[in-house]
């Protein structure tokens, strides 16, 4: 399941839904990304997507994760629009027979989302607005999967 939403979501409810009615999945791993206030420097985060293209690109990499880690299932929910500090930006869950695959697939999907998924992120605070681009650490993180 892949969803973009401009509404705040409850990651706990998403995780409960994701775990429901699974009798062969031994492991579910999940990740929740939250908007940081940066000690007052970031009042609002605004996320832009390219509707259709963004979901398609996420699906392409999620199918790669399914093959690579033999996933039973995955979920990616991503906010778009204006996001206040403390709100969830992204929810990723992965289901597999055993825990290692679920953990690794979740890590893989998040590294991809940080620097390769079609989103554009603008932070606005007292000092003005700035577009956030991937940091060297984000590039190093995704490079771990490209060997």
């Amino acid at each position, binding site marked *: 399941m892949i969803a973009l939403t401009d509404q705040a979501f409850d990651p706990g409810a998403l995780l409960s839904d994701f775990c429901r009615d699974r009798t062969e999945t031994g492991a579910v791993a999940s990740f929740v990304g939250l908007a940081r206030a940066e000690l007052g420097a970031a009042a609002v985060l605004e996320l832009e997507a390219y509707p259709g293209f963004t979901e398609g690109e996420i699906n392409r990499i999620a199918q790669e994760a399914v093959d690579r880690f033999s996933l039973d299932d995955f979920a990616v929910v991503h906010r778009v629009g204006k996001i206040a500090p403390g709100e969830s930006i992204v929810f990723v869950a992965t289901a597999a027979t055993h825990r290692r695959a679920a953990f690794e697939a979740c890590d893989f999907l998040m590294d991809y989302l940080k620097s390769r*998924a079609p*989103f554009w992120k603008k932070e606005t605070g007292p000092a003005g607005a700035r*577009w956030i681009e*991937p940091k060297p650490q984000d590039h190093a993180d995704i490079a771990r999967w490209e060997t």
Partner: protein
Amino acid sequence: MARVLLFGRLSDVAGWRAREVESPSVHALRDLLGAEDARLGEALAAPGVQIALDQAIVRGDAALSLRSEVAFLPPMSGG
């Protein structure tokens, strides 16, 4: 007329997000936009800017049809 979409910092630089533009190819379109607005031209040529034609990334030039959708995509960052 091709439909042109700008994302992220590119729409801030240009002051628009979507426009219809007549152009025979992706590169001709980029040159045309740069000739109209030098700051946008510079931003489109910056490292890491990718181009999607009908929602698929293209590398190099490609011909445009009447209903093509061309999106200019600056470096991406989600999560």
